[in-house]
């Protein structure tokens, strides 16, 4: 699925300068615990989270993730967007709930990309 499709499905706004909407991603990982992202996520995933801090971007960077989707009713602080631009990570913001966001993406073909040990 292209990042542009994700943006449209979620009615999301793009907050960074560096978003390649033609980029393909094959899975998504959703968590507010960066510990779990670091342990289990795939590098071709996008990260969906309701946690707003700089370490979300650092975590995505270490994992090689190209896009972070923030869930929430408020905008992230400018420092977070500045860091995302520096790290060349696309940041989107959707007002949809976490449940709706994941449901929409899953229904439209994005998989969980979860390692097999978590699926047992």
């Amino acid at each position, binding site marked *: 699925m292209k990042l542009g499709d994700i943006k449209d499905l979620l009615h999301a706004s793009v907050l960074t300068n560096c978003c390649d909407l033609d980029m393909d991603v094959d899975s998504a990982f959703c968590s507010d615990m960066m510990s779990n992202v670091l342990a289990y996520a795939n590098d071709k995933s996008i990260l969906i989270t309701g946690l707003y801090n700089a370490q979300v971007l650092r*975590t995505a*960077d270490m994992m090689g993730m190209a896009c972070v989707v923030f869930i929430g009713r408020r905008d992230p602080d400018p420092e977070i967007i500045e860091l995302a631009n520096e790290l060349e990570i696309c940041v989107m913001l959707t007002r949809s709930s976490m449940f709706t966001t994941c449901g929409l993406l899953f229904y439209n073909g994005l998989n969980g990309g979860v390692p097999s040990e978590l699926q047992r």
Partner: protein
Amino acid sequence: MSCNDSLHFQYVVSKDDFTHAGSASSDVKNKLKKMNVDASAVRKVSIAMYEGEINMIIHAYGGTIDVDIYEDRIVMCLKDTGPGIANIEEAMQEGFSTAPADVINLGFGAGMGLPNMRANSDEFNIESEVGVGTTVTMTIYFT
């Protein structure tokens, strides 16, 4: 660069500086990418070092990270200044955590850090003394 030569870098990690946590790991990641190191090795290094860097900030009183990059591997030595780990075997178990609620609210402290550092390392060593500090040494080979 001959077999025994390395590029050496040292990073100082400050206690409670959560905002800048990960900047050392980002720097090492960028250096390895510029050196055209295999992408999967870069990812393992990034994750292992970042977990360690976070640990030094949220569990310890800061410290130093010494990084040596050789032709075929990277060696990262993370040395903090306390408080040390009383039971290393327990600390290495997935899910074991002593992190306070404020750390968990920041997205860390799930008890995955040390096990994830070991999982991403080809060689892993940890030594700790209560009241003195902890030293973790990780080696990752470039395949």
